[in-house]
């Protein structure tokens, strides 16, 4: 039943991103997201044709957070061949960790005017549960954003990879993980607001969160993190470590026979991927203004996979492109034709896996390769063969 490993067939032949044009594109992207968009939003007055609305800023900021998640997913799936259907849990854990800090920043401005989050007053709790220890400290919560998803991923990955759980087994178990976490967070007793999660944030580091300045700063930070993730991804993928990851994806047995302990490689990239998701979640929460357990629903996590698949697995910018396309379509369709959205998403899953295994970026690459060959055939017929 096993022919040659099929992933080999559509491994990308070239990384368009590493060309000079790619670097220019990255610089352009950095300019737009770090300087142009924020300043259009803040300094151009409302009503001016060049003004960017708060809605657009939030939407693009949100999609950039998703793009970070997609990058993280790409590292583990596109480059290492491990499909996680539970990345939503890491994203949400990062969001919750930072959300705790934002909840504490509300102070006594909540509905009940108590120096505690509203849901705790509502549940008649007198003091903070242990999970909330030190949560009024920014540095502590920022640490948790990295530590909690990282630790969970490390422990889970250690046991899973050690016993060589792989393929669909691993996928389903990660799905079960996020499902279990969702159930846990739905409980009020877990101490994270149950159903409603965290919302109604007022300020961050003492700055009111809805001011254009705060929005702009969050947006720019997200853009910077996204660019950083991209560069980190490039560093990993081009290093020897990245070569081993790709080898694991294509023929894990052979890598093991060559003397590599694949558990270490997989565990590292898995944990890194989870941490990146956590950071994305932490950036997502203050911009979108809410975090609740539905972020951990299995459907959300599996959607991450389709972002990557649409953009192109195993290509660095594919994940970003995919996250942009799918989420752009989502925010358009769910508003304009809500009943069509699930058909669209369903068909996207089916058609992309059937007809676009390399994703949009892969197809563009193919076209470009073809053009180059044709050009070569015209100018230097001997070389083109």
């Amino acid at each position, binding site marked *: 039943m096993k022919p040659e490993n099929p992933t080999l067939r559509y491994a990308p032949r070239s990384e368009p991103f590493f060309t000079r044009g790619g670097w220019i594109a990255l610089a352009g992207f950095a300019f737009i997201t770090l300087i142009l968009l924020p300043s259009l939003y803040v300094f151009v007055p409302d009503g001016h044709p060049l003004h960017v609305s708060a809605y657009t800023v939030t939407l693009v900021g949100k999609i950039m957070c998703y793009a970070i998640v997609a990058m993280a997913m790409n590292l583990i799936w596109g480059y290492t061949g491990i499909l996680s259907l539970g990345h939503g849990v890491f994203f949400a854990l990062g969001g919750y960790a930072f959300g705790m800090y934002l909840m504490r920043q509300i102070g006594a401005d909540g509905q009940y005017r108590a120096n505690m989050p509203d849901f705790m007053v509502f549940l008649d709790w007198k003091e903070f549960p242990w999970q909330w220890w030190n949560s009024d400290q920014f540095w502590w919560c920022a640490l948790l954003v990295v530590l909690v998803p990282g630790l969970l991923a490390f422990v889970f990955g250690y046991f899973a990879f050690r016993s060589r759980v792989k393929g669909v087994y691993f996928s389903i178990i990660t799905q079960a993980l996020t499902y279990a976490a969702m159930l846990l967070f739905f409980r009020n007793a877990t101490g994270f607001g149950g159903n409603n999660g965290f919302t109604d944030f007022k300020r961050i580091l003492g700055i009111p969160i809805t001011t254009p300045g705060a929005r702009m700063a969050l947006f720019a930070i997200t853009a910077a993190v996204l660019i950083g993730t991209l560069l980190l991804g490039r560093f990993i993928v081009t290093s020897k470590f990245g070569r081993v990851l790709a080898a694991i994806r294509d023929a894990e047995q052979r890598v093991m026979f060559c003397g590599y302990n694949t558990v270490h490689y997989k565990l590292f990239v898995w944990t890194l991927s989870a941490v990146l998701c956590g950071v994305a979640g932490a950036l997502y929460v203050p911009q979108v203004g809410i975090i609740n357990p539905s972020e951990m629903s299995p459907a959300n996590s599996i959607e991450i996979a389709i972002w990557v698949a649409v953009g192109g697995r195993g290509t660095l910018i594919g994940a970003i492109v995919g996250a942009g396309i799918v989420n752009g379509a989502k925010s358009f369709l769910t508003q304009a034709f809500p*009943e069509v959205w699930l058909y669209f998403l369903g068909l996207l899953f089916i058609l992309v896996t059937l007809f676009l295994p390399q994703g949009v970026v892969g197809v563009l690459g193919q076209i470009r390769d073809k053009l180059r060959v044709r050009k070569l055939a015209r100018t230097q017929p001997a070389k083109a063969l």
Partner: protein
Amino acid sequence: MLIAALVVALACTNAAGALDAQTVGKLGADDANTKNEAVNALVASGDEAALALLQSVQAGEASVTPAGRVVIVKGDQVFDAATMAPITPPPDQFESIVINNRLRGTLDAAVGALKLLSPDRATRLASARAIESTSQAAVLPLIEKALSKEGDPAIKSSLEQTKASLNLKSTDPAVRLAAVQKLGETNQARFKTVLQGFFEKDSAGKFVEPDEKVRSAAENSIDTIQSRLVISDYLGRLFTGLSLGSILLLVALGLAITYGLLGVINMAHGEMLMIGAYATYITQQLFKSYAPGLFDWYLVAAIPVAFVASGLVGMALERSVIRWLYGRPLETLLATWGISLFLIQLVRQLFGAQNVEVSNPTWMSGGIALPNLVLPYNRIVIIGFSMFVLLLMWVILNRTRLGLFVRAVTQNRAMASCVGVPTVRIDLLAFGLGSGIAGLAGVALSQIGNVGPDMGQGYIIDSFMVVVTGGVGQLAGTVYAALGLGVLSKFLEPHIGAVLTKILVLVLIIAFIQKRPQGLFALKGRAVET
């Protein structure tokens, strides 16, 4: 007063027909207490005429004339309450008797208790059950009387329990002692609570029950009740566990085939359940409109309908999508997830986003009543049904040519293909079979849960866990894993709650596959790395 009432009662029994006019007259009193006394006295009489009268009073037909005569008004006619003889000419003035809540309670108990003397066994039994939880000591003499005549053991034991529980409030310690001991023979949880009340202390620090002997008897009784309760509690958990397990089994059997054979997770498996459940719904609607007389048997007809519907959809999916993705299990997973989203939305548009109503046939409602435990028929039927499906699967896999081929392809696809097994056709048929079985599971689920567009979503994880734990390629693994997980969950649930149970079971499964990555029942031989 009770003894007096008893004497009156015994005296009155023979004088059936007319009731004591003086007692009946008290019903017309203004004072609620007097009315209560009258009702109690009438109950004690145990007269059939008293039953009719009290029922009339209950129905609000009793009135009183300004002269103080109690009459029953039925339409235009007016009857004398004591003799039930029509009064001609009817009195022109009367006023209906006011029934307050307390009187209503007394009346309900009284009417219920009077039925204890009915010649019909079913009426007596129903009445005995109805007054089991009464607190009206006034019915006590009537119970005594009924007991002396009663021959049916079930009614007798019910009455004895009621009598004992009423006697707990007796002023005589000996009567209380006997009552407490009697209650120890029962196995009802509520008596345990009542008896525990004996050990409470009042504000002065004294026990509510002053007698030392009664208290120690109560302690014994509590212990015996408790031990019986524990047994029925465990039986109940075992039953619900088996019930959950049989559902898991039904859902997982189909998945085990497709996963075992093709190595792909069909994420749309849950939607095959959903299609089966909606097929049941459509069959039900057709029976409702075209054969209402046979409505009770629609479920039997739904079984093949659901099997075929889900099987066909499954085969169509295999042909159109999954076939092209063999050897790429992760892509199959994503594509089938897409299919599941598509099907959910399709059903949502065809049938609406709301749950549709699928009703139980009458022969499936109700249940076997054990002490402190009811085993619902629908659960029992489903356990039986899953065994039937299991048998069917076993026959197909082990006794037919198709089954032989399926097993061959599961074990070694390349070799099976070499010796002439048409693997492409087998894939199609096996996928259809797995989906059809999921449709059967949908029929079962429609009887115990909601039928809605996303009903299937919750099952994919659970059923895959069963397959992972059981190992693929053998039915036995799936059976043990499904029943084991079902019973384990239900035994954990009372202690740590449903959510933590789910999480703990998940952790246990992950720990388990550390030890046995191939599941409980792995195929013998070299496992081919995929």
